[in-house]
């Protein structure tokens, strides 16, 4: 049981404070602590646990329970040790007869209004109130239990994951403070006053409230008042393992608390450096999908996709898959087969799939859906700064004075990071939001953006250029920084370009749809901050000109000296949990692990040596090329690990046709997904709970995934890949993923120092980790840029013609929401559906009114690619002319209405703004016989590979 009691030092760490350390005596023991440390925490360091109820080290001390009283020599009274800071030379006593008596009577008061049902209480064995009653030696309650009390208060069971039982509440307000200080939602309050005070989530129930179900209050509660339902059902866990969330790019560290091989609950790990003890509803509660009854546990094959599946053994399935691949290669050539890696799988698994393709298939036809998310970042940051990754760790935001959030919606997509950011904003940092949508951060309780640049979709580059123009022309650039650290000829060229009045806010403002004064003020705020940081998301990378936008962001950061120290930087917020990792691991048709081009003979030689086969020097096919080749009849077999390309790809019908044209599609997944409908071999996948490995989050942090239960289907994904390789005549020899990591480290310069032992020791490692940085690199580009001198790149804004027409007046954008994840295969199979039962189409009241659409109506959305029906949600979050939907539910088929598009420097599937994806959509009401009206949005169809003539030589990544 003790394994689940987490060390609590009572009050937060103050070691970051300035001031000389303080030495004092506690119960006769001398102890030295950082200035500002509480007596309680100092006592803990001296080995003395002072009784406490309202204090916990994740929250600022509050001093309400009066249990932690101490005596200080030469002072009168009994100060609360949690709120009293240490002073030099203090002599403190934590235990005297008087203190014991005071504490006992305080406890008596608490217990006189507390149900005495410890034996049947879900917190039994892990309850701080119970512990404290024992510690203070409570033996009787003189007040009796007859007085007015709260024992009959009804439970609130509305939240799907936790129960609120106010009869057990001691009103310590740890929950209220957790919701404020840690989560930043302020969903809880103390209702009423005096004896009537009660914790309440506003006037209604938890489910109706502003609560986002992050679990911070449940974590902070010392009693059974706020308690996971799973603990009600299963009892207290008895052992645990540290692992990493498999949902988003924050990569939160969790303790999987177990009983046997059952997960009782997932609790955010206090020492996790990505999340610092916090979590969101997905990682904290929505893990039930891992053991959902829909999980496929037996491999299956079929000769054609019209036939029903046939369950077979692993050996049969693997043998069949291998013989099909060899048959197809024999008939259509070596290049007729390929593989797709998953940003949901571990680094080791991704590495193995690309190794399988390169070594056993003998070509470079390997790609990943993460390209959508990664390519512009990879290309843009590599070109300007020299490394394909974000520059900071998440902690860095706590040093930022101005934060820019661009094309990202952190409170929904990266909730734990958003909480950190909001904390910093409440401390006084200023926020600039650049987004077509009025995302929650713009105006939420206790945080408000200084500027919201509500741009027209597709004008990202124009915004960045206008900001840079102001910085340059108003003399706000950090010229010394630029002179010392950047290539000057390039800078001079760029400066001449950006000074041009065509880049001024006055000229670009009307294009962007934002007043020039707003752009000027925002630029001044960013440029004059001590530390300014930029965070961007899919709204930047999934648009056309994504790479250009990323380079424009990097330009602006270099120009203002905002790179190379904590509090600044340029950071992509990655969508899926292992986007960074899967890209690092060589998931691209033109790059081997570590972003090294296949045309480089030294690199090919290195891998060829290690793998014992020659590496093809021709870049392979990207996913869209694979589909096109499939339709041409030259690409016939595909191994898809852990991705649902038929649902998450923007142009569903094109993908379906391509898949249907193939002769052998091998799908490896947890569930029968949309892609599996076109598959001939189904290999059951293993969830993150069933395997060992590592994930790399958006801050380049490599964290361990630990197996807490055996794979439900018998094999972990990496084992299945190995079996397939062996059947293809290319045996791989690994007993454990740590050996795969050893191979990666040996072959990849940024990973040379990474071992499982070191990760275990340090908790996690941010790459680069090598001889120069043996414990990893939290902040990059410190003394100089990775590429040597930073390079300014001219970022011409290319207007997209034919934005909308009279016939198709609306722009459709897609995105995600907090409680659901990506295509929703996981979250739909959890109680998270309480919050998001179906995809909806959000539109502005003006657009709705003009079309006679009311909130809740069902509307049909049609594009050239297909049509679907969604429920309308009329909201002022949208700007007029732009509609928005999520794509979490396959039955809504939101991706059916989007079509393919390419960015000019990389092929990027545009799922955010069909302006460039040619989604002509029209929506009509679908109610009774009312006349239907149409709303349409039209999109230009961009050609692939820079055919708009703007691509300069050398700017294509391939």
């Amino acid at each position, binding site marked *: 049981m003790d394994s689940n009691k987490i060390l609590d030092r009572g009050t937060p760490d103050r070691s970051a404070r300035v001031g000389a350390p303080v030495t004092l005596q506690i119960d006769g023991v001398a102890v030295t602590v950082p200035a500002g440390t509480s007596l309680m925490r100092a006592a803990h360091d001296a080995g003395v646990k002072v009784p406490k109820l309202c204090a916990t080290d994740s929250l600022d001390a509050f001093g309400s329970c009066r249990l932690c009283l101490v005596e200080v020599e030469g002072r009168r009274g009994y100060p609360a040790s949690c709120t009293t800071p240490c002073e030099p030379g203090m002599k403190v006593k934590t235990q005297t007869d008087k203190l014991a008596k005071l504490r006992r009577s305080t406890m008596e008061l608490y217990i006189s209004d507390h149900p005495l049902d410890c034996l049947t209480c879900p917190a039994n064995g892990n309850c701080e109130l119970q512990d404290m009653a024992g510690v203070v030696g409570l033996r009787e309650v003189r007040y009796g239990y007859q007085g007015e009390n709260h024992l009959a208060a009804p439970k609130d069971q509305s939240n799907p994951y936790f129960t609120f039982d106010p009869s057990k509440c001691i009103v310590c307000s740890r929950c209220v403070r957790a919701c404020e200080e840690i989560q930043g*939602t*302020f*969903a*809880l*309050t*103390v*209702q*009423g*006053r005096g004896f009537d005070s009660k914790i*309440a*989530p*506003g*006037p*209604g*129930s938890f*489910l*109706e*409230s*502003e*609560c*986002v*179900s992050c679990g911070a209050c449940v974590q902070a509660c010392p009693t059974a008042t706020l308690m996971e339902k799973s603990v009600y059902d299963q009892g207290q866990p008895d052992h645990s393992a540290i692992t990493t969330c498999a949902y988003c790019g924050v990569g939160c560290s969790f303790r999987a608390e177990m009983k046997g091989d059952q997960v009782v609950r997932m609790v955010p790990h206090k020492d996790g450096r990505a999340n610092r003890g916090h979590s969101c*509803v997905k990682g904290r509660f929505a893990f039930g999908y891992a053991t959902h009854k829909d999980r496929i546990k037996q491999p299956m094959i079929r000769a054609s996709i019209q036939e029903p599946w046939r369950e077979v053994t692993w050996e049969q399935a693997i043998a069949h898959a291998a013989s099909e691949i060899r048959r197809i290669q024999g008939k259509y050539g070596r290049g007729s087969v390929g593989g797709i890696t998953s940003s949901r799988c571990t680094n080791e698994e991704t590495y193995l799939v690309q190794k399988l393709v390169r070594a056993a298939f003998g070509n470079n036809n390997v790609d990943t859906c993460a390209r959508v998310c990664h390519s512009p970042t990879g290309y843009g940051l590599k070109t300007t700064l020299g490394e394909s990754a974000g520059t900071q760790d998440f902690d860095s935001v706590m040093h930022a004075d101005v934060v820019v959030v661009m094309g990202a919606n952190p409170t929904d997509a990266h909730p734990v990071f958003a909480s950190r950011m909001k904390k910093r904003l409440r401390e006084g940092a200023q926020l600039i939001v650049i987004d077509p949508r009025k995302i929650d951060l713009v*105006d*939420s*309780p*206790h*945080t*408000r953006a200084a500027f919201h640049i509500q741009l027209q979709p597709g004008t990202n580059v124009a915004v960045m250029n206008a900001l840079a123009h102001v910085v340059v022309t108003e003399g706000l650039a950090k010229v010394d920084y630029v002179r010392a650290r950047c290539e000057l000829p390039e800078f001079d060229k760029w400066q001449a370009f950006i000074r041009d009045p065509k880049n001024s806010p006055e000229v670009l403002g009307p294009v962007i749809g934002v007043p020039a004064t707003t752009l000027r003020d925002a630029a001044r705020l960013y440029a004059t901050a001590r530390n300014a940081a930029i965070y961007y998301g899919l709204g930047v990378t999934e648009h056309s000109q994504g790479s250009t936008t990323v380079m424009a962001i990097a330009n602006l950061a270099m120009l203002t000296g905002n790179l190379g120290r904590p509090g600044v930087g340029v950071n992509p917020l990655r969508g899926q949990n292992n986007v960074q990792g899967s890209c690092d691991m060589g998931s691209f048709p033109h790059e081997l692990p570590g972003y090294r081009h296949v045309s480089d003979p030294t690199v090919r030689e290195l891998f060829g040596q290690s793998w014992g086969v020659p590496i093809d020097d021709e870049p392979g096919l990207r996913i869209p090329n694979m589909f096109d080749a499939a339709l041409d009849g030259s690409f016939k077999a595909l191994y898809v690990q852990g991705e649902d390309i038929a649902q998450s790809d923007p142009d569903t019908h094109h993908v379906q046709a391509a898949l249907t044209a193939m002769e052998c599609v091998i799908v490896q997944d947890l569930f029968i997904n949309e892609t599996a409908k076109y598959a001939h071999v189904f290999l059951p996948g293993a969830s993150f709970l069933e395997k060992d490995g590592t994930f790399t989050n958006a801050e380049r942090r490599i964290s361990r995934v630990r197996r807490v239960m055996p794979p439900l289907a018998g094999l972990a994904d990496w084992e299945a890949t190995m079996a397939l390789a062996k059947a293809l005549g290319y045996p791989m020899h690994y007993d454990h993923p740590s050996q795969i990591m050893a191979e990666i480290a040996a072959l990849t310069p940024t990973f040379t120092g990474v071992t499982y032992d070191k990760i275990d020791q340090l908790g996690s490692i941010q790459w680069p980790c090598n001889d120069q940085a043996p414990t990893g690199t939290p902040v990059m580009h410190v003394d100089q840029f990775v590429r040597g001198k930073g390079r300014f790149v001219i970022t011409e804004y290319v207007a997209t013609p034919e934005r909308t027409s009279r016939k198709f007046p609306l722009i459709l954008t897609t995105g995600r929401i*907090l*409680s659901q994840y990506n295509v929703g295969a996981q979250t739909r199979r959890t109680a998270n*559906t*309480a*919050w*998001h*039962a*179906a995809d*909806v189409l959000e539109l502005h009241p003006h657009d709705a009114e003009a079309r006679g659409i009311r909130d*809740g109506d069902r509307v049909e959305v049609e594009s050239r690619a297909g049509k679907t029906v969604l429920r309308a*949600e009329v909201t002022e979050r949208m700007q007029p002319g732009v509609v928005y939907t999520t794509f979490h539910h396959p039955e809504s088929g939101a991706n059916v209405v989007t079509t393919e598009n390419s960015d000019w420097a990389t092929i990027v599937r545009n799922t955010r703004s069909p302006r460039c994806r040619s989604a002509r959509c029209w929506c009509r009401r679908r109610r009774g016989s009312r006349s239907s009206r149409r709303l349409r949005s039209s999109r230009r169809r961009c050609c692939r590979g820079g055919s708009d003539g703007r691509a300069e030589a050398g700017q294509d990544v391939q």
Partner: protein
Amino acid sequence: MQPTADPGATPVPLTAAQRAAIDVAIAACRDLPGALLPLLHKLQEQLGYVPPASIPPIAKALGLSQADVHGVITFYHDFRTTPPGRHVVKLCRAEACQAMGCQRLEQHVQDRLGITFGQTSADGAVTLEAVYCLGNCALSPALLVDGRLQGRVSKERLDRVLDTCVHDGKEAQR
């Protein structure tokens, strides 16, 4: 995170007049330091109470959470969340008045109108509220009826007060 599945459980919707009153109160108070309290007072002055459905717009305007606003409304006994009766009787419950038997008066209202503190009589005539010291301790027990102070309140005196409230010529409107 609001449930999208079931929009039920929303409080009584605001009337256009209430919405307008909220806008007026917001405009008048939003820039004051500690705007919430003056805003709530102003709203209660105009509407007689603070409708629960006014919490979201107030919270939004002041950059607070709905729970923040709810907490403040429930902390102060002054704020009502249901429409008051035609007359408001505030009975003092603080020490001096207690010593002079205000509990008996409370019991008396309870017997006569079937209501206790914070409630409104079934005929809509009287809302009974508690106050804590009216500064009239020398003449306790004390009460306020529609803002008018009365001291040395006996059962009989209370009855007369209640009579005038109940029979105020507006009984039929209910």
